[in-house]
């Protein structure tokens, strides 16, 4: 025990020359207390959902509604257009879960089938307006002489409130799901074009685009390799929001009688038909209203989640 003089309690400041400190005499530092729990990176799909609860909730709800729309015939529904004057305006019961409307049609079946129209319109408008808006935005961002003309037209179209624009277009044609999609798409295209053009103009100033130009890359190749991939993130987020607003627009058009034809059950149509009776039979209006709100909420949550995930800098702000 040659080191006993250096044990705890025996040490006197200044009594030992510095040279007397030997490596084996110094006790190892005690382990630090676990102030921070060890970071366990969560991998895989479940980890992703845990880190992005908005995507998880929105996506989960969306999958449920999608399943409901696709599987509508299997979910104890009857023919949503079958008339039965003998059992008009029945209150919700074990027999008719959401009651029946003034023509005796089963509201539950109509609401489930109505989901199909909303989802088809939402997805189709989101897809078509993204593709068209991307094309116009890219053209506008790259073709100088076309930019001024295109943007003036887009400004003009954007100054007509989009639902009015869609109403005006629907007034020209007869009501059909295809025409509803077309009308809402035309009303949404200006917004997408503006977004894409803005992104393209800022990307064009990036050093890596300059480098590509300097090394002789052709314009189409620059667009495909350098510009397009960077527009996809904002475009995806925008498409989600467009999907949500298209669903609302479809229901508004159908509600005022300028949308989906009455023979096809859609949430807007069911509400339009229940309107006359809503003070005495509110359930005809409320069930489609709840489903519409939930669906739009799911899509909006998905959009917010995607935005935060794709652009974390934005997450804390908006």
């Amino acid at each position, binding site marked *: 025990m040659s080191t006993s003089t250096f044990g705890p309690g025996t040490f006197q400041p200044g009594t030992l020359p510095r040279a007397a400190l030997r490596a084996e005499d110094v006790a190892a530092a005690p382990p630090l207390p676990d102030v921070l729990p060890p970071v366990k990176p969560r991998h895989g799909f479940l980890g992703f959902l845990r880190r992005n609860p908005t995507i998880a909730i929105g996506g989960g709800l969306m999958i449920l509604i999608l399943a409901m729309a696709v599987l509508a015939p299997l979910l104890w529904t009857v023919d949503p257009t079958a008339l039965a004057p003998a059992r008009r305006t029945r209150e919700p019961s074990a027999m008719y879960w959401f009651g029946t409307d003034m023509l005796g049609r089963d509201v539950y079946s109509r609401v489930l089938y109505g989901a199909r129209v909303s989802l088809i319109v939402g997805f189709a408008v989101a897809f078509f307006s993204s593709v068209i808006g991307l094309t116009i935005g890219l053209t506008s961002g790259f073709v100088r002489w076309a930019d001024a003309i295109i943007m*003036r*037209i887009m*400004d*003009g*179209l954007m*100054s*007509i*409130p*989009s*639902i*009015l*624009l869609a*109403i*005006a277009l*629907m*007034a*020209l044609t007869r009501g059909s799901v295809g025409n509803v999609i077309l009308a809402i798409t035309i009303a949404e295209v200006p917004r997408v074009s503006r977004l894409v053009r803005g992104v393209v103009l800022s990307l064009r100033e990036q050093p890596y685009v300059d480098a590509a130009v300097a090394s002789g890359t052709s314009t189409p190749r620059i667009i495909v390799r350098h510009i397009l991939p960077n527009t996809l993130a904002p475009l995806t987020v925008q498409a989600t929001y467009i999907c*949500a607003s298209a669903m*609302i627009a479809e*229901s*508004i058009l159908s*509600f*005022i*009688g*300028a949308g989906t034809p009455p023979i096809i059950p859609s949430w807007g149509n069911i*509400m339009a038909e229940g*309107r006359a009776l*809503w*003070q005495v039979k*509110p359930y005809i*209006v*409320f069930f489609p*209203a*709840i489903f*519409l*709100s939930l669906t*739009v*909420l799911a899509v*909006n*949550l998905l959009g*917010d989640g995607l935005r935060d995930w794709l652009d974390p800098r934005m997450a*804390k*702000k*908006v």
Partner: protein
Amino acid sequence: MFAYTLRRIVATIPVMAVVALFVFSLLYISPGDPAAVIAGDQATPADVERIRASLGLDRPYLVRFAEWAWNIMRGDLGTSIFTNLPVSTMIAQRIQPTLSLMVITLILAIGIAVPMGVIAAWKQGTWIDRLVMGFAVLGFSVPVFVVGYVLAYVFALELDWLPVQGYTPIERGVWPWLQNLILPSVALGGVYIALIARITRATMLEVLQQDYIRTARAKGVGQPGILFLHALKNAAVPIVTVIGIGVALLIGGAVVTESVFAIPGLGRLTVDAILRRDYPVIQGVILLFSFTYVLVNLVIDLLYTLFDPRIRY
């Protein structure tokens, strides 16, 4: 400043021209032949041709557009196919309810949304903030007629506090007028409140990190003073801009709100005109709404200097 104002006003001309061209084309390509309608069932094709020529419908597209635009500028919006009344008269009869609804909604929305956004930014990350943001997502998701029906059901049918539907002109007293507009305004304001609250919060968060806020705090300015005087003033421009852009939501929403609450305004006029395919009326209303929207945003653009004296043109 004068040069800027002039430039800004001139810049709205092409926008309005595009709107006018679009709205005119709507009538131009609309199905149905006015000449055939006027000629009636007994007319020969030659009669129809003669009437078409007398109406000037056989002239080229651009000539007709120029004449139509000239008439619009003189205030002549055409004649309704259905009622045979001038469209401008029909609009004048219906404008008060819509204007009332929009003004009340605007006041209500700004009054609620701005403080909401400010408080959410101040209490960032707390449950108050989350509540406000949650409300904003809901506001974007629940369509205006859904809110309308729920409000009417709860406050008019169940509680019987307010009238269910209808409209009372302001000439018959302010309170009866206001009573009929409360529920529609709240319903219509939902999306608008969500939009303004979200932008207010985002802008305030940014402003609150600025050096001059720290200076104000160091100098002993109280929390309300910092939030509403120092910060909100500097956050005004984006907030005012989004209030202007959001007017489009109000216009679109008014069409539906008026249907839900049976308010005889321009929105009802539009819906009725669509169901009757009364194209001159549809045209007139869309033109009016769009020009109003452009004008509102022009005024807001010009007001920027008022909110932020640093902006110089």
